[in-house]
């Protein structure tokens, strides 16, 4: 499954709808607005931050401050296929660091980065709560559990085929 891409016009219309809902509500609506804006764009580039700041009547610095504080908000776009390795304690004890190393090696990028063609990105997270399946890898919404590093190349190959790379 890949993220459905919106055209820039569709993104702008959707953002307008969100902003009009929270217009003038100030700081207390900031988190909700940013969460919905990120759902539309996949990340929060500066132009979007400016629009949010104007609509809520708070400073851009304030908006940036909140974005940079919370790890859920991203200033960088994610890949079409976002690999997310759980580094929660239960997964870590069962070897999820080795999964992450293998994915980094196979895709040739580091955790937190996107491939040049924007097809793949890698990130890690703190516990998705599927500890019974540890160690766990998420690729967008697909969950892979009880993995070993040997299984990684086949998973990557599957998405490469899907993405026609």
């Amino acid at each position, binding site marked *: 499954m890949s993220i459905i891409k919106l055209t820039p016009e569709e993104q702008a219309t959707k953002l307008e709808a969100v902003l009009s809902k929270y217009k003038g509500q*100030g*700081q*207390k*609506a*900031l*988190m*909700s607005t*940013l*969460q919905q804006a990120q759902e539309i764009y996949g990340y929060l580039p500066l132009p979007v931050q400016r629009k949010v700041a104007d609509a809520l009547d708070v400073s851009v610095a304030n908006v940036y*401050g*909140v974005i940079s*504080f*919370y*790890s*859920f*908000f991203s200033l960088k776009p994610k890949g079409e296929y976002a690999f997310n390795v759980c*580094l*929660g*304690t*239960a*997964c*870590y*004890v*069962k070897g999820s660091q080795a999964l992450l190393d293998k994915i980094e090696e196979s895709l040739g990028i580091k955790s937190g980065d996107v491939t040049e063609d924007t097809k793949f990105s890698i990130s890690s*997270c*703190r*516990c*998705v*709560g*599927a*500890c*019974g*399946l*540890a160690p*766990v890898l998420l690729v967008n919404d697909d*969950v892979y*559990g009880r993995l070993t590093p040997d299984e990684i190349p086949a998973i990557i190959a599957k998405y490469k085929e899907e993405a026609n790379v």
Partner: protein
Amino acid sequence: MSNYRAHVLVCCGTGCTSSNSHIIMENFSKFVAEKGLEKEIDVVKTGCFGLCAEGPIVVIYPEGTMYYRCTPEDVEEIVNEHLVKGRKVERLLKTGNPDSNPTDFYSKQMRIALRNCGRINPDKIEEYIAHDGYQALCKIFSTKRDPAEIISEIKESGLRGRGGGGFPTGMKWDFAAKVQNDTKYVCCNADEGDPGAFMDRSILEGDPHTIIEAMTIAGYCIGAHQGYVYVRAEYPIAVERLSAAIDQAREHGFIGQNIFNSGFDFDLDIRLGAGAFVCGEETALMRSIEGKRGNPTPRPPFPAVKGLFGKPTILNNVETYANIPVILNKGAKWFASVGTEKSKGTKVFALGGKVNNVGLLEIPMGTTVREIVFDIGGGIPDGKKFKAVQTGGPSGGCIPASLLDTAIDYDNLVAVGSMMGSGGMIVMDEDTCMVDIAKFFLEFTVDESCGKCAPCRIGTKRMYEILTRITDGTGTLDDLQALEDVAVSLKNGSLCALGQTAANPILSTMKHFRDEYVEHVVDKKCRCGVCKDLLQYSIIKDSCIGCGMCSKVCPADAITRTDYIAPGKKLAAFEIDPSKCVKCGACMETCKFKAIVKK
């Protein structure tokens, strides 16, 4: 209402949903309908059954048959055999792991907070009502009970905060109730940030109405008319079920205006977190609900006096709330009869790591760590040796084998250098390096420190750097002393609990596993083979046939041929120059003769 002859309960918690239980659910509905049995058999979506390692789990009543590790493809067979012909599907009765024993898993548990998880459909308010739901709330209004009297009953029950601190809940409510203010707030902390813990999520997913009922009662007790549930954005299923439950409660008049014609108004809203561990701290959480950076603020003033938007506020954790309706229904005396002298009731733990029965469990306070790991948890997989169990996440510590008989309660866990925490419990076996685990938690706190106060911002970073040195082989004995010194400053000088407890994983591992630290710095050895920089690759010359494959794949040209020809071999053996070796492991992967070892 129609009567069904059988109920099929499918676990739709996050763990099982990750293994396609939602498709299993759809398939059951489809095949039951195909057989024309939809009037006889009810397919029910439930919350977590607890034994997550064996999921997805399907339970069929009235027999109570439990099927493990079901796949969507198994459903047709279960319908044809079990539901139509009355024959159990034998192969699914066995757990996937031969060492796991579900009977033991459940027999020592006592479910209060999890009472409805895996028993009712969280999407149907009627099922919650049928299990005594909203009864406590209704009774309060029908008997016009005095808020002060309810608070004293909560006090009498001995309930303490389940989020980690263990502060008496009744006292917290009392403080807020006594402050005069027209606007007050009730908040629920569902920002379960401790990695490897999923208790709160399971309650929200499996029994959301219990939180709504308890928060409404709390609102009535302190005189608040608005509540907020602060949930992690990473819990989409929990958020979806909770918001559906809030809507249903509003439709039924259990929250909203003039509840039960009492003239009391109370409403609830959800606020999503955005991935900041520090927001589990109460003052930081309130700043986050206000839409600001989640920086903690000094206490006093305590939230009961000046909390959310500057108003008196009480904040309790999900599990704490889940106990409230039961206390009021069964009485404080009953609740206080469970547990130890200073810790009453039960505690939910998320058991994970190197243990057979990974899952969610609830035990009476006073149960020993040994009972949890070996009886309920079914012991360590693959015949490995138990090393330690970690509780309290990044703020907690490790309990070694010598303390396995510690009876779990708030005070005992602190006495052994750990803490109750929110309930994550990770089991570690002989292959887990304790220095590496301490480093893992420190990396976490460095990431999550908000940066407001210097002891935490700088102290965690310095401790992480020292641990990095120790694990890459450049540490000294002085570093061990330095670690302890920084730890003390951090404990005394930090603004909030995140910093005050950040050194616990180090201090407890240093106390119980000091020999491993010394081994890392003096012998430059990691006995578990986890710290890569301390490993050395070498070639067993008598096993080497001299093919040279290793030398070809070595990216550092560290492998060269020697003069030695092993007995029975034709070519001279190779050797690795440790000063050139980059420890990539490529040679070991390539060697078909197992002549390369890592020690």
